[in-house]
């Protein structure tokens, strides 16, 4: 929570400059695209990554303050706009600090050097003799009278400002050992507004002349509008009908709601049953046509001997909902030249392109401005509602139109995290070592964001006249880092392994990215199976894992989590409580996380505590990392214990919090998270590391507490009872 400014009499240095510019800086090389000093005393930072409650703005501000030698309180992070911000792709995959942080750091180092060179020329001294104190250029004798702000207006080689220039060769950046702002916990920049209720969310945006729109969604996943009566509508209401897309625009939110209900009552739909049998997700996953690809294949022998015993098991998860606290919202406004959209999308640039592509516009006619929404955990309804707003606003040019989805639409129409099945088999040798591992994963694709596979993939496009149904979601490159097979390659030392992806080629329920993608089920499956293999090998879960892990960073987080929990290594404690361990390195190449869960099994299963140790490399904001890990653990526990999208053969039926319960305050575990320091390692992001290990730890603790392995999520009383019956 401290911010300090200090003088540096020598330029910052690190042992060696990065070998090349960070990719997003190389793609957006003009320094003025990243930094602006036009407001005296303020540094405005432009990033392509959006804030959605994960605290990325605060961490990016710390990076800039550190590298520029300015007080953190001078740094302001501009909201992303496709008109002014560098395009850094989607804010997803826990890549913001690694991608935007690296680019911003380098852009700041270059800007600092440019300013020092300009100051040196004016002062007639070598740049090496100059330093920076809170943005003021200093000489050995003190202040020089020059500052970033006084120099910023000098003409640059490619424009009117000094930073109107492309980034040059990579500059040295400050070594972490010399950090004083980055690497220390900083208070989030956005929290003061949020405790006082100041307007900050897109949902609070009120523009002059704004109108309110509602979309009347079909009553089923597969339905077409057969007819529309003539409902009585409040004055001034505009009705929009295009194929099966039906909406209203009114002067007030309330009138829009009244009109939407009237129109819904007057609409007649042809409904086709199209959804699978919710009670037989396994049957659905195994019978649907699928594209089968090998993700990883190794045929070595390593230290293992011949297989003497083989184990097999299947693990499933249901469809999961984003269930953000706020329904999705957007505002759009058309003028003669095109349309401006205010959105909480995780990918403003991709959304711009998808709107343009979907409506046959030039991308230059579409501007997307990001405004914060509630927490996002993947590809939710934000992009879809933006197109809704664009379509409704087209009916009232000159008026911004705001569309806020109803909770019921949010829960029924936003993309879901797909149901999954993982089938595992492994062979043990005579010494109880794992010699072989095969993992097959059945799932719809996770990569269904706008633009994926060259398709706009926005909900309303399928409903417009002549619209085509959305094609089944792609799943990304067939690796252990992407899509449904994210973390399907076990991170243990196993010489012979075969990992196979079965991507479904039908998509009755629309799926896309949900936090950690396939890692949640794959790690749950792998870590459950590791305990089953350990038991078969007559080894403890902790020693069995360590015996298959040579990576010291992996061993450190496991040992740290075990130590924090005070666990004696026994899964069943014999008194209705159980302990379980889960571990993974996210994506097989990012952050390390180990979790220990303690479960009390009575009339229901209750997770009392989760201890987590994470190694995410170099850390910019330690409290931000802990906040992300704690939140990830709680959300993962909620998925593992409670959550399941419900549906009948025509529609989603879990449409509010009573039918889609999440963990409540009296149910959430005590979470104890710690960072295992690794300042010399690349930063890797913390938002998704906990998802898989926590599920694995809970699954193992439940098995210890109730004495039966439960392989189907969520671990509700009913699912546990079924597993006991089948055991």
């Amino acid at each position: 929570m401290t911010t300090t400014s200090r003088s540096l009499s020598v330029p910052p240095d690190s042992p060696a400059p990065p070998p090349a510019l960070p990719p997003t800086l190389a793609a957006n090389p003009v320094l003025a695209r990243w930094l602006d000093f036009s407001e005296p005393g303020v540094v405005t930072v432009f990033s392509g990554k959006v804030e959605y409650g994960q605290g990325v703005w605060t961490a990016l501000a710390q990076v800039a303050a550190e590298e520029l030698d300015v007080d953190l309180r001078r740094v302001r992070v501009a909201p992303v706009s496709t008109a002014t911000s560098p395009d850094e792709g989607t804010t997803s995959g826990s890549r913001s600090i690694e991608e935007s942080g690296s680019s911003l750091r380098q852009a700041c180092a270059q800007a600092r050097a440019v300013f020092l060179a300009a100051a040196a020329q004016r002062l007639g001294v070598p740049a090496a003799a100059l330093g920076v104190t809170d943005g003021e250029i200093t000489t050995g004798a003190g202040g020089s009278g020059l500052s970033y702000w006084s120099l910023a207006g000098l003409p640059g080689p490619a424009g009117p400002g000094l930073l109107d220039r492309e980034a040059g060769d990579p500059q040295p950046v400050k070594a972490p050992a010399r950090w004083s702002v980055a690497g220390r916990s900083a208070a989030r920049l956005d929290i003061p507004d949020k405790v006082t209720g100041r307007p900050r969310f897109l949902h609070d945006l009120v523009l002059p002349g704004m109108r309110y729109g509602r979309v009347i969604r079909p009553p089923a996943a597969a339905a077409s509008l057969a007819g529309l009566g003539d409902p009585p509508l409040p004055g001034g209401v505009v009705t929009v009908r295009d194929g099966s897309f039906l909406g209203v625009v009114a002067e007030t939110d309330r009138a829009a709601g009244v009109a939407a209900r009237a129109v819904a009552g007057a609409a007649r739909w042809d409904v086709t049953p199209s959804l699978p049998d919710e009670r037989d997700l396994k049957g659905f996953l195994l019978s649907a046509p699928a594209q089968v690809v090998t993700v990883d294949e190794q045929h070595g022998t390593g230290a293992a001997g011949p297989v003497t015993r083989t184990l097999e098991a299947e693990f499933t998860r249901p469809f999961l909902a984003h269930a953000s606290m706020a329904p999705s919202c957007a505002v759009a406004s058309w003028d003669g030249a095109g349309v401006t959209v205010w959105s909480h999308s995780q990918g403003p640039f991709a959304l711009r392109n998808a709107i343009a592509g979907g409506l046959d516009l030039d991308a230059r006619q579409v501007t997307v401005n990001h405004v914060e929404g509630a927490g996002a955990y993947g590809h939710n309804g934000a992009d879809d509602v933006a197109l809704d707003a664009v379509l409704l606003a087209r009916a009232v040019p000159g008026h911004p139109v705001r569309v806020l989805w109803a909770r019921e639409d949010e829960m029924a129409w936003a993309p879901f995290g797909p149901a999954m099945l993982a089938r595992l088999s492994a062979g043990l040798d005579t010494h109880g070592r794992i010699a072989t591992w095969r993992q097959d994963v059945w799932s719809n694709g996770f990569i269904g964001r706008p633009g994926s596979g060259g398709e706009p993939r926005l909900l309303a496009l399928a409903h417009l006249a002549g619209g085509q149904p959305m094609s089944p979601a792609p799943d990304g490159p067939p690796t252990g880092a992407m899509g449904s097979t994210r973390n399907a390659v076990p991170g243990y030392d196993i010489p012979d392994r075969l990992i196979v992806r079965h991507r479904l080629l039908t998509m009755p329920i629309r799926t896309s990215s949900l936090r950690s993608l396939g890692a949640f089920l794959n790690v749950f499956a792998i870590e459950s199976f590791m305990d089953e293999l350990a038991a078969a090998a007559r080894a403890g879960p902790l020693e069995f894992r360590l015996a298959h892990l040579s990576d010291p960073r992996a061993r450190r987080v496991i040992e740290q989590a075990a130590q924090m929990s005070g666990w004696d290594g026994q899964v069943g404690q014999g008194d209705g409580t159980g302990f379980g361990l889960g571990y993974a390195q996210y994506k097989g190449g990012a952050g390390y996380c180990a979790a220990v869960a303690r479960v009390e099994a009575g009339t229901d299963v209750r997770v009392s505590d989760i201890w987590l140790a994470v190694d995410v490399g170099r850390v910019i904001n330690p409290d931000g990392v802990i906040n992300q890990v704690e939140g990830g653990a709680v959300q993962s526990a909620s998925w593992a214990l409670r959550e399941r999208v419900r549906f009948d053969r025509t529609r989603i039926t879990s449409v509010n919090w009573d039918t889609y319960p999440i963990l409540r305050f009296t149910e959430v575990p005590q979470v104890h998270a710690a960072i295992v320091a690794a300042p010399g390692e690349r930063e890797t992001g913390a938002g998704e590391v906990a998802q898989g290990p926590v599920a694995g730890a809970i699954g193992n603790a439940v098995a210890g507490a109730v004495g039966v392995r439960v392989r189907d999520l969520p671990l509700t009383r009913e699912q546990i009872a079924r597993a006991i019956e089948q055991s």
Partner: protein
Amino acid sequence: MLQTNAYSLGQARSTGLRVTIPGGAMEQHELHLTVNGASCTVACEPDAPLLDVLRHGLGLSGPRFGCGLGLCGACFVLIDGQARSCCDFPAWAAEGRQVTTVEGLMDGETLSAVQRAFVDEQAAQCGYCTSGMVVRAVGLLRASSCPSEQEVREALDGNLCRCGAHRRIVGAVMKAASDTAGQASA
């Protein structure tokens, strides 16, 4: 202190105004409400929920729309000191009662003890549920000045948080309770 907000959409409009929520052909009636200590007159449809009047009529952004059925707590306000949801509470039923939103908890520019504790404990991720949580905590602490952790969890059970900031939120409420007790005894 320099401005630390990354950006802000602007300040909430103050109450104390005479406001009409135009509803086209819909029937309107006048309500006399007391919100954050200021009396105001609003015209709205007879069945308008209090949340609509606060957000759209009075321009208060603190109470947030989450579910519309009183199931999530994002719209909590104090009505005569009792915390409750207002998305499922008719505006007419608030007549003659004191309505307090999160905006009304501040003393000028000074944060209340609960708000201060939420900042100190960094008790939020996205913050969409925060104003409801703060209001619920204030309601709790008015009724019970030094609750146990279990009592805090039970009090907050009707407030959902999807980001998983629960530990911090409980910690903030406990801290606010002890800060307030410390001030009272000082």
